[in-house]
């Protein structure tokens, strides 16, 4: 927040629309076009510093700033919530540097930027979803070296990831990966869908919307175009399953069939509320 104010007060040369200098935007745009042409493949790019810290959404922000239009209506959510710290900061930034209107209603938005959730309402072909990504590399779970994972993707050599999942099943009876569930995109690249819960992974498959993923600190962009296959890794006898909310509903609006936040109560019980606050608000109105 302090950095934002400083920028607003003192930066002398801000004549370009949407904050980023043209060089930075063009670098992002060229990378995005390649990313869309190679679904699920992580495109390296220059990645500039933003007034928000690395790890706080600089990748998503650079994507949004490179394609923002004054007539866009922008929704920003974090964990599904429009009022979260991260979301509020980013929205203020876009209002200032892009002159855009902001909204909490996904059906009104033209551009949605998100950290770790996909909205419950199905998005349309008139919308773009930009996801903030901390770890772009799905294979990092089994291999720390970037040079090695690059080779694995080049050769489509994903044996170690499959083995990792298999070992989980043997040892624990369950695949332990919860968020960042690895998926095969367009039948070729294994992709990290970002830390969205399993619940949201099916929304990426054969959707109407373009999904853009930005990892600023790691300097990678990737994309899932509409109508693209996104298939979570699974075994014939151990299918991909989403989180289990059976028997639970939102204590505020009564919704089932949505991702629910769990709030622990002093007596040890739990109450549940819609993670997607915009959706919950709409149901209440």
């Amino acid at each position, binding site marked *: 927040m302090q950095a934002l104010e400083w920028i607003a007060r003192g930066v002398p040369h801000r004549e370009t629309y949407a904050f980023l200098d043209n*060089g930075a935007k063009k670098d992002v745009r060229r990378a995005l076009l*390649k990313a869309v042409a190679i679904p699920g493949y992580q495109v390296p790019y220059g990645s500039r510093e933003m007034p928000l810290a690395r790890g706080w959404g600089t990748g998503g922000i650079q994507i949004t700033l490179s394609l923002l*239009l004054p007539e866009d209506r922008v929704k920003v959510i974090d964990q599904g919530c429009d009022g979260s710290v991260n979301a509020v900061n980013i929205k203020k930034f876009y209002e200032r540097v892009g002159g855009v209107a902001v909204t909490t209603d996904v059906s009104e938005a033209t551009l949605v930027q998100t950290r770790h959730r996909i909205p419950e309402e199905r998005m349309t072909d008139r919308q773009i979803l930009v996801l903030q990504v901390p770890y772009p590399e799905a294979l990092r779970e089994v291999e720390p070296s970037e040079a090695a994972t690059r080779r694995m993707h080049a050769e489509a050599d994903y044996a170690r990831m499959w083995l990792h999942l298999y070992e989980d099943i043997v040892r624990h009876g369950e695949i332990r990966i919860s968020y960042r569930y690895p998926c095969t995109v367009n039948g070729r690249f294994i992709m990290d869908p970002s830390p969205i819960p399993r619940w949201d992974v099916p929304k990426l498959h054969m959707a109407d919307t373009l999904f853009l993923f930005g990892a600023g600190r790691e300097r990678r962009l990737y*994309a899932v*175009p509409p109508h693209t296959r996104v298939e979570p890794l699974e075994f014939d006898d151990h299918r991909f399953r989403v989180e289990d909310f059976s028997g639970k509903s939102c204590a505020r609006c009564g919704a089932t069939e949505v991702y629910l936040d769990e709030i622990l109560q002093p007596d040890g019980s739990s109450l549940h509320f819609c993670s997607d606050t915009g959706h919950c608000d709409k149901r209440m109105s």
Partner: protein
Amino acid sequence: MPRESTVEEHRSFRLLLEAMSRPGTVQPLGRPEDGHRGALERLAASLLDAETTLAAWTPELEPQARALAAAHGCRLTAPGTAAFVLHTGPDLPASLGSLNAGTAEMPDGSATLVWLVEALDTEGGLHAWSGPGIRDVLHPRIEGISPESWTEIVMNTADYPLGVDLVFLDRLGQVMALPRSTRIEKGSP
């Protein structure tokens, strides 16, 4: 740099992004009265700068390539190494394989071929396009490409994830994209 021109660059890029994410659709990039030149200039303004390279594959586009390089600072190089390659006319001067197709470790390093054609339409074509960005199947029509060129284009998609990405601009300033991820089969609807 005035704000208005940079907003225009944003508009141009949104259309290019739409075109690449929905292959076979047609987007109004430049004004019809400005023809090829207008669309090409909008593409260049939103994408080209000193960090990238440009080549003219056909001699008649060399003056245009030089003008774009001067305006945006990109370096002119040989077609085999350039990131953006300009072409016009129904036939290709050489195989698409002679352009940069990327490498297995860096498939994104491949070229983008910007092809100035006669006319673009979302239907009426002789090939069935399917794959990422396309709901079921499309039969886009591109007027100004020879049958031999189509053979090259189809072969280009066989090497996925390597391959050149194609961007077509027509006389009305419209744009259509054909990324390497698109599957093309012969056959009208």
